[in-house]
């Protein structure tokens, strides 16, 4: 991401940039950018850990090892473990269909994959409640079959699937499109089966984008709040995911406990960011 890479060969660095890096104007802008980011982005990040550890390591450990917090961590991990592989499978399927084949309606399909990005998670939650809730469209049928979707794990998983739907597809699709189909066609010509083509030719080509999408999807799945808060019912020790648990502790006026729970989510977010940055450097 260094400027020399960005400037196409044949262009000299514009003189005023060379000057600018040493002039007051540039220093002012860089200082302003760094200062504002420290206040606006870094301070909230730092403050989570400052508050989480404000009463020492012992209190922090007690807060994390509290059974309700441990259960929330377990539930959130479970949701991610179910959702991320499904999302990876969906992302690969969507990318394979759209990038490697031509058929009418491809554009519409891509738009449909992107829809969950522009819909507020809370609206997604309401949609699910209107479908699977007791008064929902499928409510009577679900009750007759004695299936509990809302205020239980299936509801949380479904809403998280909705919210994260585009994550892997969005990373893998453009890459597959750019790579074209020549290598795959060559493999087919040489007699490879569909599965062999995918595993030996396509997968090695897209593995970093796939990993990148999966990391972003995990971060999003773990942190989902609005949609899950509609469908979970916030039953303590049962359907309380980690972000919901943070809110619950906050409402209980247990700020240090809330920050301790939040710090685990922050660590996950930071790990995801580090992996993302490393993968971007690799591409």
């Amino acid at each position: 991401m260094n400027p020399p890479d960005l400037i196409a060969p044949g262009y000299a660095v514009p003189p005023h940039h060379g000057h600018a890096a040493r002039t007051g104007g540039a220093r002012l802008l860089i200082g302003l950018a760094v200062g504002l980011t420290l206040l606006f982005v870094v301070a909230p990040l730092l403050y989570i850990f400052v508050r989480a550890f404000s009463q020492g390591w012992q209190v922090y450990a007690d807060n994390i090892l509290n059974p309700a917090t441990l259960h929330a961590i377990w539930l959130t991990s479970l949701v991610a473990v179910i959702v991320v592989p499904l999302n990876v499978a969906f992302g690969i399927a969507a990318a394979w269909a759209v990038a490697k084949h031509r058929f009418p309606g491809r554009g519409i399909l891509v738009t449909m994959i992107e829809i969950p990005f522009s819909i507020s998670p809370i609206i997604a939650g309401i949609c699910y409640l209107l479908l699977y809730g007791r008064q929902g469209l499928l409510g009577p049928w679900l009750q007759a079959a004695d299936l509990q979707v809302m205020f239980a794990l299936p509801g949380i998983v479904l809403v998280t699937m909705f919210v994260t739907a585009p994550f892997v597809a969005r990373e893998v699709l453009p890459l597959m499109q750019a790579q074209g189909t020549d290598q795959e066609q060559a493999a087919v010509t040489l007699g490879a089966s569909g599965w062999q083509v995918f595993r030996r030719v396509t997968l090695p080509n897209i593995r970093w984008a796939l990993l990148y999408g999966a990391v972003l999807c995990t971060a999003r799945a773990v942190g989902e709040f609005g949609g899950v808060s509609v469908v979970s019912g916030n039953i303590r020790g049962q359907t309380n995911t980690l972000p919901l648990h943070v809110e619950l502790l906050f409402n209980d006026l247990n700020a240090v406990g809330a920050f301790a729970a939040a710090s685990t989510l922050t660590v996950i977010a930071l790990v995801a960011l580090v992996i993302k940055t490393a993968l971007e450097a690799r591409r």
Partner: protein
Amino acid sequence: MIAAAAPVRAKRVLPGFTLSLGTTLLYLVLIVLIPIAALILKGAEIGPERFWQIVSSDRAVAAFRITITAAAIATAVNAAYGLLMAWVLVRYDFPGKRLLDALMDVPFALPTAVAGLSLTALFSANGWFGSALEAAGLQVVYTIWGIALAMAFTSVPFVVRTVQPVLEDLDVSLEQAAETLGARPWQIFSRVVFPAILPAWLAGCTTAFARSLGEFGAIVFIAGNLPFQTEIAALLAFIRLEEYDYNGAAAIALVLLGFALVLLVASNLLQNWAARHREAAR
């Protein structure tokens, strides 16, 4: 034998089309489309008269007004901050630049509830910023400023990440020409650079605004959630659900969905304009 038969097939289509398209459609229909259809059906069931009654009630109108005002403030902040960040990250070289660039993704990676919790504590009377602002007579937490702050934080990356690639692609010879002709740095920016990045900048602002309208997690912590004062539309829909008033919730959710779709179309048009702009500039 296989080699003789395969090329004919391979020229047409790679294997796995039915399987992959089938999986994609099944997932989309079950996870995305049917639930959205349930919301739209509910809206149809309510009927136009009752629908209008719900969304034009005083409390709903106040909630929409608060949401839109706060989102506008947040977008204005990010329009300036995002442009500054994109410019500094593309045009200057300085130690810590890559870290600064990575930090721009923090608001996307950080769960919104965590952001809300931290901002609330930071800006409340005993927090780092709140204590200073309180002394200056400025209250952020439990006011519309708090809502705007939460919205601004959660939508930081939109403007930066839309403007950045366009700025990177910009043909610097135009700026060199302007400088040769005696233009001042500010003139070069406003006359040469800014018109070129305008479509992308507007597209970024539109997505930031759309995201702010739908934000929930970060806001419930900081807003205080007082009806007519600091209650956003998404929260009002949530409250209606908790009161088992599904019609009320569905009507408000449909209005928000309508906003989101209009803004999605607007942002797509702007992005297409931006893409054409970039092609033309090359």
